[in-house]
């Protein structure tokens, strides 16, 4: 998959302005990192599961795309379980390992939290087309066009860098300097890539300028980035999930504010 050609689909989730996706993912994450308790994370996660399948991603692509989150969450949980702050009854102790009632609770909370923040973020972002995101950031958030479009065009170069890296690797073998010293070789190759990327970047900048980029006129946009009802609704859903999680957690007395 190319970095700038994400999967396309016709479900609602693909049509929503990426800015709204970014906003709701940030909102949810922002609220959930305020507390470390398993109740709020579990409530959020439960709501998200319903929403994710309603969003129309197939099970296979959902599992594939979110796989890193499914690996990261239990790993972080296990680490917390073994080495987390001990509290309450001790279940098992061996050297530095100290599994206690407190660390178990913390482990579950950590695992659920990473899933609750990670899963919706991934789902929202795999359906984002960088071009649409740039349009949104420039037209809706009103970030400077120079900055947004420069970044977008630069993103396209990443694909070329992969090819450059491979060619550099082969060329170094051909030049007789690829034996031994992997660290040094990698460093010099990385530097060579940097030199090439600067040259590519300046060529691209010239090509953009040749098409009037940076001309002293008010730029127009060929693609309209709209922010309407469904965008507001998505942010509303994010807010509702966050509030529900906080509400249930506070009501059950398990709210655990990180900053206290």
């Amino acid at each position: 998959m190319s970095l700038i050609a994400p999967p396309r689909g016709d479900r609602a989730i693909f049509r929503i302005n990426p800015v709204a996706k970014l906003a709701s993912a940030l909102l949810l994450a922002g609220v959930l990192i305020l507390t470390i308790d398993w109740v709020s994370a579990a409530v959020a996660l439960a709501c998200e599961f319903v929403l994710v399948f309603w969003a129309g991603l197939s099970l296979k692509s959902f599992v594939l795309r979110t796989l890193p989150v499914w690996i990261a969450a239990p790993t972080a949980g296990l680490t917390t379980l073994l080495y987390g702050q001990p509290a309450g009854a001790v279940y098992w102790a061996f050297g530095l390992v100290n599994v206690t009632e407190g660390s178990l609770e913390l482990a579950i909370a950590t695992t659920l939290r990473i899933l609750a923040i990670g899963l919706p973020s991934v789902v929202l972002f795999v359906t984002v087309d960088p071009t649409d995101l740039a349009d949104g950031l420039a037209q809706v958030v009103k970030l400077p066009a120079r900055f947004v479009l420069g970044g977008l065009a630069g993103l396209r170069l990443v694909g070329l860098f992969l090819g450059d890296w491979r060619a550099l690797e082969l060329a170094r073998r051909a030049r007789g300097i690829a034996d031994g010293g992997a660290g040094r070789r990698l460093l010099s190759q990385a530097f060579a890539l940097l030199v090439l990327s600067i040259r590519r970047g300046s060529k691209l900048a010239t090509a953009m300028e040749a098409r009037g980029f940076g001309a002293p006129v008010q730029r127009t946009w060929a693609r309209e980035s709209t922010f309407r009802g469904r965008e507001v609704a998505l942010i509303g859903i994010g807010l509702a999930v966050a509030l529900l999680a906080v509400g249930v957690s506070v009501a059950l007395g398990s709210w655990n504010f990180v900053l206290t």
Partner: protein
Amino acid sequence: MTPAAAGSVSGASVVARGWGWRHAGRRRWAVDGLDLRIEPGERVLLLGASGAGKSTLLHALAGVLGGEEEGEQRGHLLVNGAEPTAERGQAGLLLQDPDSQVILARVGDDVAFGCENLGVPRDEIWRRVTDALRMVGLNLPLGHPTSALSGGQKQRLALAGVLAMRPGLLLLDEPTANLDPEGVLEVRESVARVLENSEATFIVIEHRVAVWQSLVNRVIVLDAAGGVLADGHPDDVLTSQGERLAAAGVWVPGRGSGLVAAGRRTSSGTTPLLRTPGLAIARTKAEIIARDLELDVLAGTALALTGPNGAGKSTLALTLAGLLKPAGGAVLASPEFADGADPEPIRWRSRQLLSRIGTVFQDPEHQFVAATVRAELAVGPRALKRPEAAVTARVDEVLQRLRLDHLAEANPFTLSGGEKRRLSVGTVLATQPQLLVLDEPTFGQDLRTWREIVVLLDELLREGTAVVAVSHDADFVAAVFDREFRLAGRTGAAAPLITSGVVPR
């Protein structure tokens, strides 16, 4: 094509009065003392030796030379009576490198980019996008990914992007130098169609004159010493200046390459260096490009790898060179060639390759690793742990042979295209490998460098070096190679090619 789409723009005039430009940090003026007048609607082919400032002039006309921090200007250069930077979008510039001109991910968006920058209203933009794509003959959906385009298609896309801006001055800077013959034709045809439907003033730089000759009505030759060397009707200029132009590296039609046959090489071509039982090739493990490729590389003979785009020519060359792992079958070196190393070149150590197989990459910049030309040439001999005196002697020899001695202390990245190509060949020659593998060595080169490569390879072959090269260049294949291996889709076939050696006339 509606007449209004392209015909609504009238051509722009160009005036230069004592104009000069010097890049920041350089002592020499890239262009100097230029006096020139180009009337609206003229079609101009701009020629000149490399270093005569052709590209600098085109960039200046497009208003993309940069401000004061980029260089210094003197005299006047005017497009329609105004400074080129004042009226953006009046001049449209198409550059040489197809890869660096694609700006956005989708075809339609990319063409629209220039119009957006010029503040064209949305409805009008999409009308222009459709028109421009039709004009260059790119019949693709607007949502088509630009990453999936061929080189020729990318150039036509960039041309459409330029046309959509409706420029009065259309500038093309070696638009076909990085394309295969098919791509060259595609772009030429697109431009011809555009010129038929437009009144725009047109200036193209290209050292292969034949491509554009029939589309222009004026040829201007820039003098490397400053000013204009010749200016007039194409036939007149090419006749009166033909010899001088050819010496400066311009391919003047009807003059040939300036090389004559020097009698057939007495090829020692029976000793195989490499053979490839059941070879299958792949860039990455998953995608096999071609299989059942059986070929021999013979000592002292030249083998050309040809075929359409994507047939796997470069992949085959790199596999033969011991750089890519065969996806099936094997590349086997004869015991004499392996000389104590493993029979399979892919298992050789990087250092063992040096004295056996030298590879020249398509993009010379990929293989430069040192800060000066001299140090670059010393990399190989030093890796072989040759004594310092021997390294210096060998480097000096190669510097002279490739006419790079005056550049010994220059940074490889600052060299011209032809010099970079010569240096990349030199780095390989420094360790005297028995087999030379080259990927498109004549790509984008002017006649002078082309001739030098042909003569050099001929000399090496006579000395007993084997040569394998990927090439689209039929003249080059005819001039140097004994045999041709044509990759056509999934299989290849070796065909004998009758050829003779060449020396400079």
